[in-house]
């Protein structure tokens, strides 16, 4: 059974058709890539699935549960973790607080426990700190744990954001341009990290990416989106040689 299933999703922003008849089947443990030129609607698809916008039409199921009409935080706690294209880190919070914050839905103490500092509250905080430290080690940012996240180097900020997304215990991880603005060195490191998450945490990954090298290397299946419609879907080899994709990315070569 598919872990994440999107059927015939269409979305309009006013009169603009941002996404048209979009379908996705994500099996457990797969890595699927979504490529396409700027403004094709890639991030909109992420936002639609993660509940930030509600699609005009269509159906989304995660693990057999319908996601339409749920709040983003509910969808996130059902097992959909995500990162953002422009790094939405919290300005006044330290790295470890970021990761602990993402465990919000796993907190076992209630509001009264937080007010009166109950024993459960203290033990939960300890447990979360240990979990967060472990995640930070996985992403190799544990030495930054008590620094403000926004003061870190760019690559480290990306890794903190991924650690934060992993702290929600996702079954599906959405990565929105994880290598934007990275040097080739950092790019290779990011490939290694994504492979590692994929193996260690047993998550399915759905990612948006511009760099074809990155997508070709990681993904088992790739969708190409142009003007809100999928024009091609297949293995990296098929996509690389698909004339429509080449046209969308490079333009048509007229032969006189």
């Amino acid at each position, binding site marked *: 059974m598919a872990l994440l299933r999107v059927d015939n999703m269409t979305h309009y922003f006013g009169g603009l058709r941002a996404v048209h008849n979009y379908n996705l089947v994500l099996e457990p443990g797969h890595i699927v890539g979504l490529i396409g030129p700027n403004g094709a609607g890639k991030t909109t698809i992420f936002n639609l699935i993660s509940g*930030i916008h509600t699609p005009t039409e269509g159906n989304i199921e995660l693990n057999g549960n319908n996601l339409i009409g749920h709040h983003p935080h509910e969808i*996130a706690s059902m097992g959909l973790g995500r990162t953002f294209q422009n790094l939405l880190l919290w300005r006044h919070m330290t790295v470890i607080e970021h990761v602990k914050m*993402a465990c919000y839905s796993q907190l076992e103490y209630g509001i009264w426990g937080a*007010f009166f*500092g109950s024993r459960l509250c203290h033990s939960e*905080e300890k447990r979360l700190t240990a979990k967060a430290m472990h995640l930070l080690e996985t992403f190799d940012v544990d030495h930054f744990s008590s620094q403000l996240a926004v003061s870190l180097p760019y690559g480290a900020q990306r890794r903190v954001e991924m650690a*934060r997304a992993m702290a929600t215990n996702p079954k599906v991880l959405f990565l929105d341009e994880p290598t934007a603005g990275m040097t080739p060195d950092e790019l290779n490191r990011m490939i290694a990290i994504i492979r590692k998450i994929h193996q260690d945490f047993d998550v399915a990954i759905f990612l948006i990416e511009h760099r074809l090298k990155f997508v070709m290397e990681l993904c088992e299946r790739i969708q190409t989106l142009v003007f809100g419609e999928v024009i091609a879907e297949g293995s990296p080899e098929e996509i690389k040689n698909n004339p429509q994709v080449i046209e969308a990315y490079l333009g048509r070569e007229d032969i006189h």
Partner: protein
Amino acid sequence: MDSQEHTSQQREKGFKTRLQGFIAPIPLIGWLLGFLGAVLVEYFLGDLLSYYLGLPKIPVLFGFLTVLKKPLLIPGTIVYLILVYALPILFIVKFLQKPANRLAAYLDKRRVSVASLVHLSLFYGSLHLWADMSDYRLLVIKLTMIAIMLTLSINVINGYMGEFSCSHPGFMALGAYTASTLTLLFFANDKQFGDALLPGYLGPYFFPLALIAGGIAAALGALVIAIPSFRTRGDYLAIISLAFLFIVKSVIENLEFVGGPRGMSSQPHYSTLPMVFIVMVLCIWIINNFVRSTMGKALNAVRDNELAAEAMTVNTRKTKIITFMFGAFWAGVAGGLFAHVLRYVNPGSFGIQRLAEILAMVYFGGLNSVTGSIVGAVSINVLSEALRPLEIYKWIIIPLLLILVMLFRPTGLIAFTEFKPKELMKPKEKMVGE
């Protein structure tokens, strides 16, 4: 050569380093003991000293009032302050440095609650004695403690959650009127509600319940603002909350059974110093627990980026409602105490001016910080009492001070820090050996 450089360096830094060297090894409990000593000196020798120094009576608020009224008394007041406060405190903290550190180390090994209790009771004892010497001092202390609660509770909304709420005096009014109505109805023979329904000796035990009822009334009022606050932020929320403040005020002005614009008076004398102190400590403790837990850190996440908070499983809607109601609850409790301190309450005291006062305290002290709120509330409150003889000039000096703080520290004096009682009470002796 090295040592010479070292000493010259020391001489260059001079006073500041020496002061730091003096202060650094003294634990909090040492300062509390010093304060107790100074209070004891004043208690037993204060009248005598002020008589010999030619002062009309003991300087109540560190001599500010005396000096501003009669500048000729400046030398006498300064000598008094040195003899009564500076010297005893300095002697005690220096001579008791070792035992105080040993005591702090002993308490450090115990549970935090035990250590806090020892510190708080020592502090309360000295404060009680200090307040005993003058009714005016007692009133200022009580009002300052209430101001601390108000500042802290608005900091939860405006600082930690980053909304700009202007309805705090409204919450305070709801609390003040609810608590007053209850105590007047049950325990006082007054013109509004007639004879007392319950015997008077039950009153002090019932009073905390009346305060909680006031807090709950304020929290229910906060629900009204929390609901539109889902969709609006910043300026719009400020306008909505300001509107709420005016609504509350005019509703109370037009409700005849709570006295309308004349207000209510002759509340029983329940806001005693221990009562106010205990409620304030509870307020600080609960708010500090909350903002330090991951659940409370969700406020910061909502403030810094709501979308990211929502995507990281934080229920932002619930967080906002709870925060508004929580902040309002404490404002309501503070309002209830306030009404019983003055033993008179009218709608006029919960207007725009009160709002300006509360906002000044929170922005002066520092956003997102419990310590900052305490510092802001105490300094603005004591300052505005101390400068009272300057009359109209007071309203030039305090705003000027605020402008200076905003220029040099835009987020307030002590912003974005965590208040850690355990760190505060730690022994400081180790630094001496190094």
